[in-house]
């Protein structure tokens, strides 16, 4: 079944939202999630006890969707499963834009009544060309509009960005919306699509491909309804914007778990991986990696090769960083002679090393000697045998000094932010202080806000950079093969 771009636009940019059947037992999950919605919110509930509590929250309650005195763009349905067909019939009569079925208990249960109800819902939606999301899902989030799919998500410009997310898991979609904005991944739109009975992953992918607010697409997928269509949509998306795919159920036991979760068919993981590569998408193995890759893509610097110039403050981290980049499939070559000549003018080899990695703590005063740090970064940037630059701040050793001398810390951040702007090569900064996780996270967040691409570990930095280099390489060679497209 196919829906028009306009139908999705209305669903993802609603002016009026109605929540049907939210109740105290659920902690008024939906009404609380939508309390910052910038448009108009209605509740539909007939139980007098519930209505009192709903009205106490300041939400207008009506007894039926049909009682709402204006057009409704988006409806969240949280009623028991056997009532859903009746509510959907009201949605059709009211000509609403789209419906999210939060209600679970359909084909994923495997019981005949659930399967029958799901078939009934699908037929109802098809006949009325009604965009139904789910069932068994958390629906749409457009955080810019305060349209959340869980309470306490960041909203407005603080959460907004260019990454669109499709999730076959409510939890993964919610956590993406919670984590993304604080980890440098602003969100354009997110949708949890559950059993995806009416609108499938491919439909959302097509919408996000054509959505000008979205420049990077990420998805958590367990299985797709029509594999060929998904492959075709994916293949025609990756030349336009990168698609990051996190596949759930890659083990045999995980595949069994998929069926009771979203009732999706299992595909052997080797086939899935081959399909992803064939389509030019990026396969990741965790939400951490998904966010790392998205952040790297958003930084917008494209590497033309995989030769890394590495900077660390001290010996051990410089060795481990080198291992991390090498194991991720990158090269760590020597710099050019011209670079070593320039470095020789000021680099302190006592207590350091100027091969690659550059063990530079004594030269750049653990980051606090701004002049030398700047010179060093410029030399690595100008070096023609280096494609990407990564620097471990050695924050575990310096975090106390950052806090004690905030002006010095600001000066360091200024240099990193200016260089991140200026560089043509991807520039990754590793910030970690395992004994002071909250301080390290704050430092990362500050740097991210100032446009510096930060990571928690050299391993994660290396892997994300490697993934992006492969994506850019595939896209470039595809463009060379077919210059017309």
């Amino acid at each position, binding site marked *: 079944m196919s829906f028009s771009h306009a139908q999705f636009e209305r669903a993802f940019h609603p002016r009026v939202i109605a929540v049907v059947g939210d109740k105290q037992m659920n902690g008024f999950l939906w009404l609380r999630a939508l309390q910052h919605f910038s448009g108009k919110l209605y509740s539909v509930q007939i139980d007098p006890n519930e209505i009192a509590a709903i009205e106490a929250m300041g939400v207008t309650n009506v007894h039926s969707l049909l009682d709402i005195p204006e057009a409704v763009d988006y409806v969240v349905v949280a009623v028991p499963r056997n009532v859903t067909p009746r509510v959907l019939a009201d949605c059709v009569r009211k000509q609403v834009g789209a419906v999210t079925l939060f209600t679970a208990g359909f084909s994923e249960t495997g019981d005949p009544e659930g399967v029958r109800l799901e078939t009934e819902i699908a037929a109802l939606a098809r006949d009325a060309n009604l965009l139904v999301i789910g069932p068994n899902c958390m629906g749409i989030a457009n955080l810019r509009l305060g349209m959340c799919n869980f309470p306490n998500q960041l909203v407005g410009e603080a959460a907004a960005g260019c990454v669109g997310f499709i999730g076959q898991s409510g939890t993964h979609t919610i956590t993406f919306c919670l984590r993304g904005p604080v980890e440098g991944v602003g969100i354009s739109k997110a949708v949890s699509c559950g059993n995806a009975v009416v609108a499938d992953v491919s439909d959302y992918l097509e919408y996000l491909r054509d959505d000008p607010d979205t420049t990077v697409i990420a998805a958590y997928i367990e*299985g*797709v309804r*029509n*594999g*060929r269509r998904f*492959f075709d949509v994916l293949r025609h998306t990756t030349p336009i914007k990168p698609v990051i795919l996190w596949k759930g159920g890659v083990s045999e036991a995980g595949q069994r778990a998929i069926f009771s979760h979203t009732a999706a*068919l*299992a*595909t*052997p993981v*080797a*086939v899935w*991986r*081959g*399909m992803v*590569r*064939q389509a030019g998408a990026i396969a990741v193995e965790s939400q951490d990696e998904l966010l790392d890759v998205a952040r790297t893509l958003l930084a917008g610097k494209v590497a033309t090769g995989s030769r890394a110039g590495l900077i660390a403050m001290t010996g051990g981290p410089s060795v481990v960083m080198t291992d991390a980049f090498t194991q991720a499939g990158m090269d760590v070559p020597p710099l050019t002679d011209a670079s070593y000549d320039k470095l020789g003018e000021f680099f302190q080899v006592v207590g350091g090393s100027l091969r690659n990695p550059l063990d530079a703590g004594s030269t750049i005063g653990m980051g606090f000697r701004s002049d030398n740090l700047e010179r060093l970064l410029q030399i690595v940037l100008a070096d023609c045998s280096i494609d990407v630059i990564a620097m471990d701040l050695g924050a575990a050793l310096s975090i106390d000094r950052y806090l004690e001398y905030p002006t010095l810390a600001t000066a360091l951040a200024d240099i990193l932010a200016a260089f991140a702007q200026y560089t043509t090569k991807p520039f990754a900064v590793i910030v970690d202080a395992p004994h002071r996780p909250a301080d390290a996270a704050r430092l990362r967040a500050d740097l991210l806000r100032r446009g510096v691409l930060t990571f928690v570990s050299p391993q994660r930095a290396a892997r994300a950079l490697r993934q992006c280099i492969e994506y850019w390489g595939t896209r470039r*060679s*595809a463009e060379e*093969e077919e210059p017309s497209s």
Partner: protein
Amino acid sequence: MLCYHAAVTTRALNEIETKALLAAAGVAVTPTELARTAAAAAALAERLACPVALKIVSADIVHKSDAGGVRLGLASPADVAVAFDEMMHAVRARQPAAHLDGASVQPMAPPGGVEVIVGVSVDAQFGHVIMCGLGGVLVEVLQDVAFRLIPLQLRDAREMLTELHGFPLLRGVRGRPGVNLRALEELLLRVSKLAAQRPDIQELDLNPVLAYPDRVLAVDARALIEVQR
């Protein structure tokens, strides 16, 4: 979840039928013919030039070696005649219920090739997919295989080979010459094209394909096709 319509069933193609299908699609195969008697086998060995391989032909036998149905490197037509009779006895003893069509006779492939396997199957979500990997122990133990959806582009065929952990064996390692990668890519593209034109193919196995510095050669093959009842 493959749902077969009641009127549809599958039929196994034997080595000779499958090789004919592959040859028509432009895939190099060892010339292979069916002998129903020991005398016919000897005559074929004479014509195809020894040494030859003799393999049982029966729709009921999937694992030919396990059934005693493979004899390799037979040096003369006389040896072939003896081996034919011995094979029929051995297979009948192990699988008395199997219907035996005879044995296939084919020249031994030259030594020194790298064993590669190529397969086509049907995925419940994605339809026809193609697989390739390095043969023997590498495929069984390490599962060093690459998959793609059919049809393949040249870039896909190339990446299927380079992403194998054992790719250095194909590229050449420690003074051992590499194989003709272009020919291997071409074989993958031809098998992909064959499957794309034949939606009735449920399974197709080329195992092994021998890859040499100058060419590639499918030495054994089997297929499963869908037929209307």
